[in-house]
């Protein structure tokens, strides 16, 4: 039994990070009623941007890059943790500028448009960074392992889980305890009234899209050392994200978090027993749950059903 604990920790970490991706995805679904299939590409971009900063693969003069490498790895990592998501948020804003034209139309439009965007971003990644895998270097303090109860535990998993928990808590505080969060929730409920109340809906939507992109990028950076950085990592992330939304129920914060953890644990556990089939388990779970509960575990009726 105790042998399973590391697998459970791995599953939990993965689930929490999936939940983080799904939350950004859900904010966009809530406010814009659009599915952002390019969310995974933003996740991948976050990982690539952080790799550029941490491993000093910068398109800058050689002396500058050299000066940058003299800074300790820890500081470079922290800088990447701040600037890579911000850069990704800028890309997200650019994307929102295109997606904007589909608001108020059938979600199918946005789905197709962002699918095209995902193809374009993935191809851009291939052109800029090539098809090879990269490994994101992490500071000494969070790498390596510890031995506890005769088992080896990876320090990074603890760090990643803690990081994801604090990020989710911050998102919750932001949505539930700040006036901005109240506006976002109100916008998801009825955007016309929010506009009538004098709030700049265009700017609000752009901000929320950028915020979602930022969350995806953060998850990308934290998952990068676990998954490795490769061009199609975006698809690997966006599919679980939408599974989590459907499983947890569209529009439910805790639904997304619990579905994320559930899927993470399931992938972790099946990974321990039948690693070949661990990917399959989450689809089967979704099909089983949604067959019996049409709107997922915590879902309410949403506009996406029409």
């Amino acid at each position, binding site marked *: 039994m105790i042998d399973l604990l590391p697998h459970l920790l791995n599953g939990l970490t993965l689930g929490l990070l999936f939940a983080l991706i799904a939350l950004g995805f859900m904010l966009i679904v809530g406010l814009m009623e659009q599915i952002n299939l390019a969310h995974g590409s933003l996740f991948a971009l976050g990982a690539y941007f952080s790799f550029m900063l941490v491993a000093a693969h910068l398109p800058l003069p050689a002396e500058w890059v050299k000066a940058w490498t003299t800074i300790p790895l820890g500081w470079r990592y922290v800088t990447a943790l701040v600037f890579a998501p911000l850069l990704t948020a800028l890309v997200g804003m650019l994307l929102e500028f295109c997606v904007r034209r589909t608001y108020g139309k059938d979600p199918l*439009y946005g789905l197709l448009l962002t699918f095209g965007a995902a*193809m*374009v971003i993935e191809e851009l990644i291939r052109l800029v960074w090539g098809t090879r895998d990269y490994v994101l270097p992490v500071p000494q303090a969070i790498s390596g392992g510890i031995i506890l109860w005769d088992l080896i535990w990876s320090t990074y998993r603890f760090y990643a889980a803690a990081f994801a928990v604090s990020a989710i808590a911050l998102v919750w505080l932001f949505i539930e305890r700040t006036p901005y969060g109240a506006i976002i929730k109100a916008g998801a409920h009825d955007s016309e009234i929010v506009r009538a109340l004098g709030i700049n809906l265009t700017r609000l939507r752009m901000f929320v899209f950028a915020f979602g992109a930022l969350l995806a990028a953060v998850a990308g950076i934290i998952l990068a050392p676990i998954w490795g950085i490769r061009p199609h990592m975006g698809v690997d992330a966006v599919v679980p994200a*939408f599974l989590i939304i459907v499983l947890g129920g569209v529009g439910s914060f805790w639904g997304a978090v619990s579905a994320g953890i559930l899927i993470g644990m399931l992938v972790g556990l099946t990974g321990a027993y039948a690693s070949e089939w661990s990917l399959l388990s989450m689809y089967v779970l979704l099909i089983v749950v*949604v067959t019996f509960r049409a709107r997922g575990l915590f879902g309410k009726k949403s506009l996406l059903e*029409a």
Partner: protein
Amino acid sequence: MDKDSRDSSRLVTPAMLGFIVLLCTLPLWIGKVGLYPYLGIEILIWALYALSFNLLLGYSGLPSFGHGAYFGIGAYAFGLFQHNIVPSLWLCLMAALGAGLVAGAMVAAFISHRRGIYYAFMTIAFGQVFWVVAIKAHSITGGEDGLLRIARLPADFGFANIDLADNTALFYFVLAIFALALIGLWRLVNSPYGRILQAIRQNETRAAFIGHNVWLYKFTVFSLSAGLSALAGGLFAMAQTSAFPDVMSLHYSGYVVMMTLIGGGLVSFWGPVIGAALFLLARDIIGAVTTGWMLWFGLLFMAVVLFKPEGVAGWWQGLRQRTAGMSGNATGFARLRALLGGRA
């Protein structure tokens, strides 16, 4: 009676006949324009696949985004039947069609009561299940290495046995199947059944209120579309002489959506054919200049979704009506609004 409604009651329209005659001459000139006969086979197969996909997206308004699964199932069924049961072309093609029908019916039984984005999500989930199985069931499908050594079996008509190993012979064989499917689909979409599918696309609730069993229509059209996609997949396995899991991935499932939409599947029967040809030509022509051809095609696709979701066929219809002096593209826009504007 205007031209369109006259065409819809015909078995073979003049446009169809002209197109097939033009295709018959293709092996004579394709080499001269710098292309190769195999491309013709590929375009026909993908056009058949896109046509059967458009039965769902364009005619019934059902967004199936994991359709590559059925194409792949057809390819594997063709190969496995040939390797393990009987190496007979007709039976192998029947096996591909049958496997697609069964897999499609299984999935349709789970999803036919859904609509909209949830329908899209569920089709993606099922598509991914088939894809993962194809990759992981190494002993059956060969995993990521693919199922190799699939023979191009000879077409045995009883009185004549035609060898299809040559690309030109295979092209004519695929063309024959494509022409039959084209006629069959044309009759299907213009039959009462096809009309009800279009009613479901316009408003599912109203179609149900008139007394149609919407679930049954959605179930049958999904199975049929999956079956025909699998038939195309079987032909693809024969053309490639192998079957790989890639075609079942989310990317490839997306490509068929791209083809259908860019060609104008939302407003025209011919949209998927135009789109498939455009997609494969772009792959070869842009791909010859730059490795990142998907970048440019993806940008083109985004532009089409944003500015001209009726695609090439819609653009052509608009052009024709403008020259004919009619105001606006009434049918095109109405059909599009019904699909994308949704809930009126």
